[in-house]
């Protein structure tokens, strides 16, 4: 009974924040609305019993990335944008991209709701602390290796995330981390080159 209420409440906050980001003229205000939106997403994660993701969402996006955003916005101090028009030349292109994004996300939601049905998140607080995972257990019986599927209750959502990241999707995870490393090195190299010119 309470789960849909909280979902709509926090979903409304997320959308309100997102609209605020593009509607504000002052970049710092936009950043604050984005922050509000992030908190809404974290709250949505909690209603889905994904408290680990919620904490990481706040820690990484709100506590890390947005702080750097604000830092940059303040460094390039910008109280001059007040007279500029709301709608720019790229409005058409932006609408097109937004439409495609909406189509992809909406299509996925419709498709998944047809196959599995949108189940309500369990409202039982006791379920918040455990997650059921199924895995193959490898045992050695009489010199032979036997694989048996087991379903077990692990002590929390963080363990479930770890199983997903480091076992089921290990390769994509590692590929993504290598990409990030490459991007980071690239950023350092690009930043460094301008430094040498200054010197």
């Amino acid at each position: 009974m309470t789960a849909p209420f909280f979902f709509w409440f926090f979903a409304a906050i997320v959308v309100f924040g997102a609209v605020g980001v593009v509607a504000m003229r002052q970049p710092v205000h936009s950043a604050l609305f984005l922050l509000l939106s992030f908190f809404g997403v974290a709250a949505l994660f909690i209603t889905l019993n994904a408290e680990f993701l919620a904490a990481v969402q706040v820690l990484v996006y709100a506590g890390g990335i947005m702080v750097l955003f604000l830092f940059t916005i303040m460094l390039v101090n910008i109280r001059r944008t007040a007279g500029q028009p709301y709608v720019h030349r790229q409005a058409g292109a932006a609408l097109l991209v937004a439409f495609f994004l909406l189509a992809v996300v909406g299509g996925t939601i419709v498709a998944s709701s047809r196959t599995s049905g949108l189940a309500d998140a369990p409202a039982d607080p006791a379920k918040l602390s455990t997650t059921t995972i199924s895995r193959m257990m490898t045992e050695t019986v009489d010199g032979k290796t036997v694989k048996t599927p087991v379903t077990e209750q692990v002590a929390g959502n963080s363990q479930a995330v770890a199983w997903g990241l480091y076992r089921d999707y290990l390769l994509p995870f590692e590929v993504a981390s290598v990409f990030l490393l490459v991007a980071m090195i690239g950023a350092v190299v690009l930043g460094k080159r301008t430094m040498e010119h200054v010197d």
Partner: protein
Amino acid sequence: MDISASVLTYFLIPAVKAVVVVILVATAAGVLTYIERRTLAFLQVRKGPNRVGPEGILQFVADVVKLLTKEDVVPAKAQHFIHFLAPVLVMVPGLAVFAVLPWGPEFTMRIPGLGKITTAWYAADLNVSLLLVLAITSVGIYGIILGGWASNSKYALLGGLRSAAQLISYEVPMGFAVVSAILMARSLSLVEIVEAQRTHQMWFILPGLVSFFLYFVSGVAETNRIPFDLPEAESELVAGFHTEYSGFRWAIFFLTEYANMITISAIATALFFGGWLRPFPSVHALAFLDVVPPVLWYVLKVSCFLFVYIWFRGTFPRYRFDQLMALGWKTLIPISLTNLVLVALAALGGFRGLRILGIVLWGAAIGAFLIVTRLRAAKPPAAKTAPASVRARAAEA
């Protein structure tokens, strides 16, 4: 579970705890200012506040009255709403963290009219409570940055920018130090981490010597305390990010600084010093120490750390900003990564692995200390011999 029982456990008891926490933290912050001023005065061979009440103990009450009645000035060109919002953004996370701090174990008490109630010395034991602490404290930065920005003052803005850079930098080694404690306890729940130190039969300071050092140094930086109080360095930035704040809003920044000190000390206690457990929780010969209730043990340990904070302030000069950044990125982060690998390897070996790591680390630390003191004793005191250049000039003359 009938309705009234669930209302009691999920609403009434947490509400009571929340009120108690707010009152206690505000009072503790006030008392801490008094203790800090007296201790600093002692360290600097002067008297400190000693006029209001016996030995000046009521000084903080007088200060609160003064701050509450002071005019609340907002700069003319400030961003009013954000200027108003910033103290709130600082205080809410600072107090919210207290929900998961484990001050003591579960206990049962009898309340007339309600019967027996089993509750605990913490408001919530989440299975990600440690992560929650990191997440919430990292949000506290916004109040500082925005306060600095909204004031429309270059000193405040510089303080806010410094603060952003500093907190982001020191969050990294702090996170790694916390991760090593998680590896030792195999849990993210603060209550379980404390209990793990009972089952491991040792405080995690034994294998976590380096982790604790990293945690506490980063913690001092995260709370903007001396020697890392660059965001409010008074010799350069007037008062840093809160230059343009006065009266009660300034008091909120001040109160939160002390609340954060308590948080950092409490987490350090829970992770590395056995939380509410007595020293050597597995040695039966020391069972008489259980006379002291667990909560008191916790408060005692936290008080020690708070004293260290004040001691730091009386001892160390402030870092320069580039030194601060160099220390964070070039010293603490490499050490924390190496330490994390060591602790992870030791944790693979279970109890024995951790114990061996502890003995090796402490052996190395004590050995290094002995060697350094021996070398110091062998050399004549540096202060009495003048530098070579001075001596040469003296010889010429």
